[in-house]
Structure formats: C-alpha cells, structure tokens
C-alpha cells in the first residue's frame, strides 16, 4: 500500500515537472520581425561566424573573427554598407562539429543573423550544412578548403573562398614534380575529410610518398603521438615532408623533429592551413630552427609583404581597429573575407534579402576585389573561389617570401577535377581606395 | 577532587541509550574493574570517556578536569590513555614503530627512550621482536604491545578495554599480572573493562557492575566477589 501511494505521488511529480519544463521552454525566444529580412534592420545587418576560440585548433584561428570584426568596424566608421552598420556575432565551437551545430542553431534561431561568414572547419561546416540549407541562410566564404563545398547541389547556400584541399594537393604535387623530383617524400595529414580530400588530390597528380602518416584531429597535442610521427619519418628515410594539418599539428611536428635532431636534414613543405609562421612561432618556440627554410603554400600575399597594397591597407586597419593583435596570415584572412563580404552586401542592394545576396555573388562575385592572387570563380554554376597557390620560403625571423625572391610570386593553378597544374603569373583587381569597396 | 569521577553519565547510539545515568568514582592509584556481559555498554563507556564518541548527558572528570568535549589526542596529552578493544596495534607497522607511536607527540625524547626501555624490560618478548611486523605477533604479544605503547605516553589514567579478549588463560594471567605490577610501580589509575569478571576483580580495588547500560552495583571488589547473588547473576560462576 505504501508503494502504491508513493508511486502515485511520483506520477504527479513527473506530471507537474514536465509541464513546468515545457512552460519554461515555451517562452518565446525572441520577438519576430516578419516584415523585413531576418537580421536586417534599417540601420544594421547582422552576420555570424563560428570559429575555434578555445581548444587544440584555436591558436591562430582565434584571431580571424576579430580581424574581420575590425575590418567591419572600419567600414562602419566610413558609412557602413548602404547606411547600415555591420554587426558580427562571434561564436566559439572549439573545433567540435557538435558545438558548431549548437552555436549555429543559436546564431540562426536566437541571434537571427542575416548570413554566416567565414565559418571555420571542414567537419564543422558539414555538421551544420543541413540546417543552414533548410533555413536558406547564405554561408559566405567558409574558412575551409574541403572540395565538397563547391557542390552547389548539396550546399546551395555555401560559397567556398579557399582553393580546395584537393586543388592544394594537386598544386603541391605539381610543385614537387617541378622542384623536388626524385626526393623521398613523407606526408602527415589529418585523418578526416580535410586530409582525405588532399590524398585524393595527390593521387590525381600521381605524387608518391614513402610514408603516409594520418593523425586524429586533436591528438597532435599528445607528445607520444608526435613521437610516433617522427619515428615513422625517420624509419621511412624521407628527406622531404609534406604536412597537411592545422597550426598546432605543424608546431608539434616541427617541435618533435627538432627534438629528434632532424633540423637541416628534412625539407618541410607546409599546407596552407597550418603554415602561418607567427602562429607556429608562438606555439613552438623551439621549432624555430626548423621553421627557417620551410616552404609554405599560400594563396594570399605574404602577411609581411608591406609592399602589397592590400597588406599595407589591412595593416593600417589592424593597428587602428584590432588593438594588440600582431598582423599575421590569420588577420589577413579575416580582413580579406570581411572585404569580400562587404562587396557582396553592397551588391545585394539597398534592401538586401538572403536570395538577393546569393544572386549578387553569382552575378558579380568573380569581379570582387580581394587580396588573393588567383582569380575568383563564383558564378551561377560554381561556388569555387580561388584556384591556385604560390610557394614561399620561411626565413629565420618567421617572415615569408616567394621561393624565387621577394615579390616574385609564381602561381600554380589547377581545377577541381582532372585538369593539369599550370604555372602562371599573378593577376587580381586593384584595391579600392583606402580598402573601402565602391562596387 | 582527585581521581576519576563519573556522574549521571549517559551515552546513546542513535536512538538507543547504550549507557544510562551511570555514576562511579575511582580514586587516584586505584584499579577499577568494570564488569558486565557482552553489550552491557562497557566499551561505549570507555569510548565516550576517551573522546572517541560524544556523550549525551552527565559529567566525567579526571583530577577535577572535565574529560568531556575533548578529542582523544588531546586527552592523551593530559595523561588519559585508552587502549581500545581487540589488540589495539597497527599490524602494518613493526613493533618498534608501534611503540614509537606512543611517544610521537612527546617533546621529551630522552624520556621516551627511557620509557621504551622500561616497556622492553616489562615485556622482554617485545624486545626480541622489535623489527618484526606487528602482524606476525601472537594475540598476547599484541596486547603487550598495545599496553606498552600506552605506557610510553606516561599515562596517569589508563583505560583498558578487554585486554583478555581471545587470549589463552595462561596469557591472561600474565597480562593481568603485568597490569597489577604496573599500577603499583607507576602509581597508575586503571579502569579495566572486562567480561572476565573473576580475574579482573581479583586484582581490582573496586568493581563496577553494569547491565544493559545501567549501574547494577559498585563497591570494593572483595565485597563483590563475596556476594553470592551477584556471583550468580552477573559474575557467571
């Protein structure tokens, strides 16, 4: 009998608590404003970005959103976009697809952003794709080179900016054929779509490796794991190592190689993702002797090339609006994406909608001004951005300059399928005055 | 007053009163035997007197200073030492270390050494086994070790809980002899809790008989031994 009574009370408690739970959930998250496009008011446009601000992948990338915001602040102070000021909501996803999913929910449903811009990470962007598509939210200039995002059927609202990892691998393969023929090359890569994309590219151009070393994202901070990379490199007898990982992986590999006495014995070739010298320098001060002389792939100008008009202008904005941040490749990436976003928003007209924004990029995106050396490929049928790389050598002071000498940029361009790797000179639109787009 | 005074003393175990309204006194230098069957509350009484468990009401004092509300480790420093039930030694330590524990808090290291020497005189078997683990000692040896450790603290009041428990009659006799010797030699006041009434009362000055936590009677031990009714009801022979 006692049992009977207490369970009855239990049921009641459950009932009350359940109702209370949903009653609390039922409070509307935010009032609707159904008459104008989501995220746009007469004075503001709200954009959102997800990036790792914490965790293993954060160092370096955590500077990107603040650089972008600095650029937007600069534009806002100079009249904004058609009279509207750009607000950027920054969310940390710790490089976790799960967290990316939940903060993207927040950006779209709670913060109600107009569009996403520069969201970072291959797996992270994949995880959120379904929802972003369903909601028709434009996702501009994703900070990843996963070739899949160029698929306009599967990711209709997503615009790639970086050349794909597939293209990058092809370009590096072409460069290896060109300058490192007959060398014994090893490859370290992140064991997910990021690395698998690259493997496919290397396969396409027929690059041969004496060792392929995959690593799970995040495991690079474990010294024992890195110890294993190094023993694998040594046992394979490689004299050249291509590293296709994030900055912390580059730092860990160089640190580990230094420890194993490989300084001067192995030529390092760093993929664009983990090749920012200043980030690596801060992550692994001991790796500096190895960084010196390493070759890095890049599609933007060298961050220390003040002779470049874009770089010079961005450096100015950085000093003024991004207090305390040292100017590096991450800052350059953030501001460059910001500049492209401003042009896209301008192109979308005085009463922008999500549909108009995407149509505007399809129509005129290929003519936008940006710091990248390769042309932009956006059109109605393609969402591929840049398509080529140049190779630079990192010096002892962690600056980077083209392998053939300062200012001598040579571009290796290619495509997303079976096309050949082509060497060409650089070509890009001139920078709008003071870095303020007028399109 | 000098000596041990226990007045209207009660201790409870949760809802159950284990010791009820107990009063008795033990004069300085006397040996009191607390007699009662298993579960009579003897151990609870000692544990409350030495501060291991809280009491409920009443008074207990030693030489006029209250024993109550103090921690056992502080009472040890004021000369009240409790040797708990069941061969109170630390089996993981060796004999020497067990003895050393007795004087670990004392500043006068010379006297500690002296006291240790005295204990070894008293119980020569301990001296033979100084470096053996206490685990390897026999029951009687462990009891000697426990008492020896207590002596190194130079106690004034020694509370002994069933030193005879589980020992052979011959060994019990030895231990009780030693206790008797000690208190005459050192002027110790001893409270001896025992089920083994005969042996205890034989060496005791006074006896306190308790049953289910309450006092049955107390008085000079010779008188108690002579009382035929008590012998039949409580002393078990």
């Amino acid at each position: 009998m006692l049992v009977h009574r207490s369970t009855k009370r239990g049921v009641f408690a459950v009932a009350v608590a359940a109702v209370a739970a949903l009653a609390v959930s039922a409070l509307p998250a935010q009032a609707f404003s159904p008459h104008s496009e989501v995220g746009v008011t007469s004075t503001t446009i709200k954009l959102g970005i997800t990036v790792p601000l914490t965790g293993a992948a954060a160092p370096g990338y955590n500077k990107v959103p603040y650089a972008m915001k600095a650029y937007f602040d600069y534009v806002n102070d100079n009249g904004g976009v058609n009279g509207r000021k750009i607000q950027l909501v920054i969310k940390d996803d710790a490089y976790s697809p799960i967290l990316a999913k939940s903060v993207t929910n927040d950006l779209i449903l709670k913060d109600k952003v107009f569009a996403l811009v520069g969201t970072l990470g291959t797996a992270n962007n994949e995880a959120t794709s379904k929802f972003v598509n369903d909601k028709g939210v434009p996702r501009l200039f994703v900070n990843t080179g996963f070739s899949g995002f160029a698929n306009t059927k599967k990711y209709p609202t997503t615009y790639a900016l970086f050349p794909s990892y597939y293209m990058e691998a092809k370009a590096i393969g072409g460069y290896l054929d060109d300058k490192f023929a007959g060398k014994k090359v090893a490859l370290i890569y992140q064991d997910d779509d990021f690395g698998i994309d690259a493997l496919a590219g290397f396969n396409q151009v027929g690059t041969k490796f004496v060792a392929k070393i995959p690593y799970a994202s995040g495991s690079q901070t474990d010294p024992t794991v890195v110890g294993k990379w190094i023993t694998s490199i040594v046992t394979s007898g490689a004299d050249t190592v291509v590293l296709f990982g994030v900055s912390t992986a580059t730092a860990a590999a160089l640190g580990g190689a230094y420890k194993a006495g490989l300084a001067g014995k192995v030529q390092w070739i760093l993929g664009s993702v983990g090749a920012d010298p200043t980030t690596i320098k801060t992550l692994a001060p001991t790796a500096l002797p190895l960084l010196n002389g390493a070759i890095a792939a890049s599609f933007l100008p060298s961050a220390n090339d003040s002779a470049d008009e874009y770089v010079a202008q961005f450096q100015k904005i950085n000093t003024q609006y991004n207090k305390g941040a040292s100017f590096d490749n991450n800052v350059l990436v953030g501001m460059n994406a910001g500049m492209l976003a401003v042009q896209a928003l301008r192109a979308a007209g005085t009463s922008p909608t999500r549909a108009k924004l995407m149509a505007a990029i399809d129509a005129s995106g290929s003519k936008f001004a940006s710091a990248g050396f390769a042309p932009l490929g956006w059109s109605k049928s393609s969402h591929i951005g840049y398509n080529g790389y140049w190779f630079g050598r990192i010096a002892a002071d962690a600056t980077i300059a083209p392998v053939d000498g300062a200012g001598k940029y040579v571009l290796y361009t290619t495509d997303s399928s079976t096309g050949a790797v082509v060497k060409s000179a650089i070509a890009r639109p001139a920078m709008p005055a003071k870095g303020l787009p007028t399109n | 007053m000098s000596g041990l005074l226990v007045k209207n003393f009660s201790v409870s175990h949760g809802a159950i009163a284990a010791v009820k309204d107990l009063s008795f006194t033990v004069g300085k230098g006397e040996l009191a035997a607390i007699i009662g069957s298993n579960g009579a509350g003897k151990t609870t009484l000692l544990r409350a007197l030495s501060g291991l468990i809280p009491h409920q009401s009443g008074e207990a004092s030693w030489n006029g200073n209250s024993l109550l509300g103090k921690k056992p480790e502080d009472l040890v420093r004021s000369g009240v030492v409790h040797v708990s039930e069941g061969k109170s030694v630390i089996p993981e330590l060796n004999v020497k270390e067990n003895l050393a524990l007795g004087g670990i808090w004392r500043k006068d290291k010379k006297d500690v050494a002296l006291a240790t020497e005295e204990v070894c005189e008293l119980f020569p078997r301990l001296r033979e086994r100084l470096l053996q683990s206490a685990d390897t000692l026999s029951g009687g040896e462990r009891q000697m070790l426990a008492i020896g450790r207590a002596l190194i603290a130079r106690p004034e009041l020694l509370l002994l809980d069933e030193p005879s428990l589980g020992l052979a009659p011959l060994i019990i006799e030895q231990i009780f002899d030693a206790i008797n010797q000690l208190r005459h030699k050192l002027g110790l006041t001893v409270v001896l809790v025992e089920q083994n009434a005969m042996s205890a009362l034989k060496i005791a000055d006074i006896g306190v008989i308790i049953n289910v936590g309450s006092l049955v009677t107390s008085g000079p031990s010779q008188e108690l031994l002579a009382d035929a009714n008590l012998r039949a009801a409580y002393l078990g022979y």
Partner: protein
Amino acid sequence: MLILDTFLIGLSSGAIYALMALALVLVWRSTRVVNFAQAGQAILSTYIGYEVMNRTHNYWVSVPFAIVAGAAIAAFVDAVLMRALEKRSHKGSVSEIAPVIATLGLLGLIRSLTGMIWGNAYLQYTSPASGKGYEISHHTIPFSPQNLIIVIGALVVMGVFAAVFKFTNLGLALRASSFQPEISRLAGIRVDRIRTIGWAFAGAAGAVAGALVTPTTYLSPNSLDLLLVSGFVAAVIGGLDSLIGAVLGGLILGVGFAFILQYIGTSVTFSAAFFILIIVLFLRPRGILGSKIGRRDA
C-alpha cells in the same frame, strides 16, 4: 633501436603518470577517497607556476612556487571541502559516492575558474631545458634534457617521499593514520591534521607532475585531464594502497602506452587503458603491490 626508442618515449610519460598515481594513492590512503580533482589541482598550481615564470622569467624559480601552491591547494581542499562533506553526508544512498561527486564538482570548478582567469587558449610554460634528443653515435634518441628532468624530478619526489615515510616521525604518523585512524588518535596523533598534511603531499606530487609535463605540451584549463585517467589506471595497477606500486604502475602504463601507440595505433591508446584496468581488476584485484584490504563490496 625502435624498441629502445619507444621505451624511452614511454619512460618520461610513465614518470609523470607515476607522480599522478602517487598523488592519488596518498589521498586514498589518508582519506579513502579517489580524488578526481587531482588533475584540476595540478592545473591550478601549474598556472600559478606560469604566473611566477612570467614575472621572474625563470622556470626554476617558478617550480617551487607551483609545488607550494599545489600543496596549499590540496590542504585547503581537505580542510574545507572534505571535512564539510564528512560532517554532513555520511548517511543516505549517496554516502559512498559523495566524495567522488564532490571531487568531480571540484574538478569542474577549478577548470572553469582557471578558464575565467587565464582563458581557454593554449599558453606556453616553457622550461629552459632543451627539447632536443640526446645523440648517441649518430642516432638521436627520443629522450631530451627535458625528459631527463622529468625522470629526475619524479625520482627526487619519490626519494623525498620514501625518506619522509620511512625515517621521520611525520612519516610514521602519516602511515599510522592511514592504516588505523582510531588507534592513531588514541596514541595521541592529531589524525585530522596529519590527514591534511597527507593531502598536501599529494598536492605537491601532482604539482610536480604538472610543472614538469607542461613544458613539453601546452597549458590550458583541461590540458591535464588525461593524466587523471592515466594516473588512476596506474594507481590501480599498483594497488591503490601502495606508493611503490603507484610508481611501478605509472612506469608500466607509460611504457605500455608507448608500445601500443607505436605498434597498434593512436586511437586505441585510451581504450587500452580501460582494458588494462579491467584485466588488472579481474586478475589481481589488489594490484601488483596492493594491501589486503579488498576493493570489492563486502
């Protein structure tokens, strides 16, 4: 050669695991609590070391600060949290797991606090010792001065502990209190105080582990989380009660991990920790050097 290299890689991580296991065992012996906050406390003390290094620019000066901080944090945790817990939650259905949950809460608290103060970014706490491996007849071994310091540091801690436990009155009191708290109290030992000192020793050992291992990686609020698991597994392998067992357990686990990583693969390492644990618990429930007190329910 590869076998030797792998062994060396395992040796220095094993030394760190051993220190962590040592800390867990010390707390277990004195309080019968597995301190799941041990790694958190080590993180906090390491951040303090980091702050000191930022001010003095000297790693060697910062390490003693970290150790003292680690000891103080641990003593504080025992004196405040564990005492309160003991007083209040000795009854009810959670009494057995209350300490586990409390230390988990503490781990979360320390993590969030360090995150608030220092941020979640990766910081550098660098040691001046070179990370470059020693060269032996033209082969660079994966064992650097940094690793040597780790091993020596761990040995020093173990040596100091062994000396204290074996030859001092404090050590005797620590051992006695952990084996038989009641008898120790009756012998006049202030067991509460001794117990807090035991925690302080544990905190110091954890702090050494944090201060030694961090220069080989990064410093962030949860950079030592995995040490907690390794430390626990090592402690159980050694038999949660034995200090020497903790050291052996740490070394076995460190070297074992290195070989698994080298010859099987990265991603199975921590699953391996689980299986090692299960196997040890079933084959030798008392660990290789555990005392007789069993770990199973009565």
